[in-house]
């Protein structure tokens, strides 16, 4: 039934305690720290960094450049964290970029700015969460295929963003918002702290809580998960809510980075996020995946763009390289999967 021996299904059927997972079964699963695929991916990442260092020894490993890379990775990284949840649960979310656009625009309308930074942040988060939950309800209770439900949100959220902004770039004049989110904390940009925080919270949620285990269970085998007593519909809706909330957080980051809200924000995020999740080793069919892989995936793409610009290369070739990396990573997964099955 299950596609993978390391699936968490057996644990889920044992009706685990409601809150934190007991450490014992975790240890029994054992495999987590040493994963051949993750190690390979990390190798690719290290190799890329090496290329960056060799081609621009003066610029690559400078504090400013590393901070730039992480800052640029932050928004797409946060979106990819949400995407990882959705894909592990067996779904897909094509609307993340549009939700980022809508959240950012709604947060930067002048009336919102007049109420101050807190309202702007709440706006972005609420719009993101709301859109995610609508996706989730459509998928689970409405029985609309995820591809179609989120495709609808993809179109309508960006349309609404264009409507609200009047298709104009809305410059942020709220100085409190800018000085906080564009500032540093302990010498590190706030955006990077936010990214780290979302990642850690996401990791704990996925690997150390019932919510996470249920996500794996639903994605691995929906029927078995239902028989095991999981409210599959409610859980699916919540997973899309998590993804939407991540988009709201990313929207705040994009607004801070660009000092503006625009309906063009978050363009192609859905493709970038899916690419990062997939090369991170998460199965598109659901049931298995890791956030660490996603993180490395996001960093690989961001570093790639950085190296290309540092060496003044064409963006066209960058896209070709991006495609090649995706194919290589997926082929690698294919091989390791087969190898594992045969043992």
């Amino acid at each position, binding site marked *: 039934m299950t596609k993978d021996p390391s699936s968490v299904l057996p644990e889920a059927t044992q009706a685990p305690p409601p809150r934190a997972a007991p450490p014992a079964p975790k240890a029994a699963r054992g495999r987590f720290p040493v994963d051949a695929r993750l190690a390979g991916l990390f190798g690719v990442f290290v190799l890329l960094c090496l290329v960056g260092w060799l081609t621009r020894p003066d610029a690559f490993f400078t504090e400013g450049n590393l901070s730039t890379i992480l800052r640029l990775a932050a928004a797409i990284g946060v979106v990819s964290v949400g995407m990882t949840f959705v894909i592990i649960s067996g779904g897909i979310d094509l609307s993340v970029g549009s939700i980022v656009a809508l959240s950012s625009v709604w947060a930067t309308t*002048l009336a919102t700015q007049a109420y101050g930074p807190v309202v702007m942040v709440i706006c972005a988060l609420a719009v993101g969460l709301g859109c995610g939950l609508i996706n989730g309800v459509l998928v689970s209770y409405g029985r609309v295929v995820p591809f179609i439900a989120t495709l609808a949100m993809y179109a309508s959220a960006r349309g*609404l963003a264009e409507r609200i902004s*009047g298709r104009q770039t809305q410059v942020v004049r709220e100085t409190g918002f800018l000085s906080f989110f564009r500032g540093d904390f302990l010498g590190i940009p706030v955006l990077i702290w936010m990214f780290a925080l979302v990642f850690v919270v996401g990791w704990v949620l996925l690997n150390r809580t019932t919510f996470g285990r249920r996500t794996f269970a639903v994605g691995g085998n929906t029927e078995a998960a239902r028989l095991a007593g999981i409210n599959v519909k409610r859980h699916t809706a919540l997973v899309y809510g998590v993804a939407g909330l991540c988009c709201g957080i990313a929207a705040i980051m994009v607004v801070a980075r660009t000092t503006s809200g*625009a309906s063009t924000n978050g*363009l192609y995020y859905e493709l970038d996020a899916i690419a990062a999740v997939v090369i991170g080793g998460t199965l598109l069919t659901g049931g298995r995946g890791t956030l660490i892989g996603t993180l490395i995936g996001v960093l690989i793409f961001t570093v790639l763009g950085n190296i290309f610009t540092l060496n003044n290369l064409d*963006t066209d070739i960058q896209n070709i390289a991006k495609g090649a990396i995706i194919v290589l990573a997926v082929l690698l997964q294919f091989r390791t999967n087969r190898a594992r099955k045969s043992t």
Partner: protein
Amino acid sequence: MSGPSSLARRRFLTGGAAVGAGALLAACTSNESPQSAPQAVAGNAGQNSQPGKHVTIGFSAPAADHGWMAAMTKNARAQAGQFSDVTFTATEGTNDVNQQIAQVETLINQKVGVLVILPFDGKALTQVGQQAMDAGIPVVNVDRVFDTPLAYRTWIGGDNYRMGVNAGNYIAGELKKKGVTSPVIGEVAGIDSLPLTQERSQGFRDALAKHGFAVGPRVSAQFTPESGEQMTSNLLQSAPKLDALWNHDDDQGIGVLAAIDNARRSEFLMVGGAGSRNMMDLIKADSSVIKATVLYSPSMASSAIALARLLGQDKGIGDLAEHEIPANVTTYSAVVTKENVDSYADVAFDS
């Protein structure tokens, strides 16, 4: 501006809030920005401004998905409103070529007097432009050029090559004034696959070469603030010291400036492109790196409507000896600096 359209918007938003995120957000959403009036060419002195024969002008343009494009449609509408002898029939903007063809065909069937077409793709719309001309409807082709002059009576548009030339000349002049000998000159281009981007870059290269300079670090963004910020952040890491930077587009310029601000860099001068109100305000304030912008003004849409009206009335342009409206009108990419910004404030657009 704050008339029926903002009412409609507010009504729409209330609906959106109900679907989306509740009453709190509805209260937070209104966008009464300090928007300026769209650009209208004042009726010129002379007899052309006098009401004449009634003209119905059909208008078709791409979706207003970008500050500049939005200004084009707004300007056309505002200009038509200036004339008591013009009826303006606009179709909904679309980026679907087939839909735009269908829209133009509808306008032809309605037998409008003159057509103003800003094609999403000049090549793809050529056929339908020719169809209109064959039906005896003069076509004013705006900005993106049709494949053949058979498909239009008059073309009016900007000069992308000269935009690059003027940006290059201005930068070279400023650097020479400062006595810089081998400068590092950066470029943040728009979408590289578009001919307009290639022409702008070519003009920039050519002008710099004439002064013995060359383009150093170059990136290509997407005409959006976010891509501008992203590409410029990387570019600034690549060049620890810059002398000048040309950014093709003021929409993405908001992001470009955010990146510069974030990297706390100010050792170079920056030139923008297109001429948004934001950039003109910053140039006037003279408190940041941006010192100039080269125009690619959406006022050309206003002029297109004025030309269409004159075509419909069989008039020429005053002050020219020609009996007829010329077949080509190319707008000039003036360099807007602190010194002359006030005189260009009327063509600034909200990006």
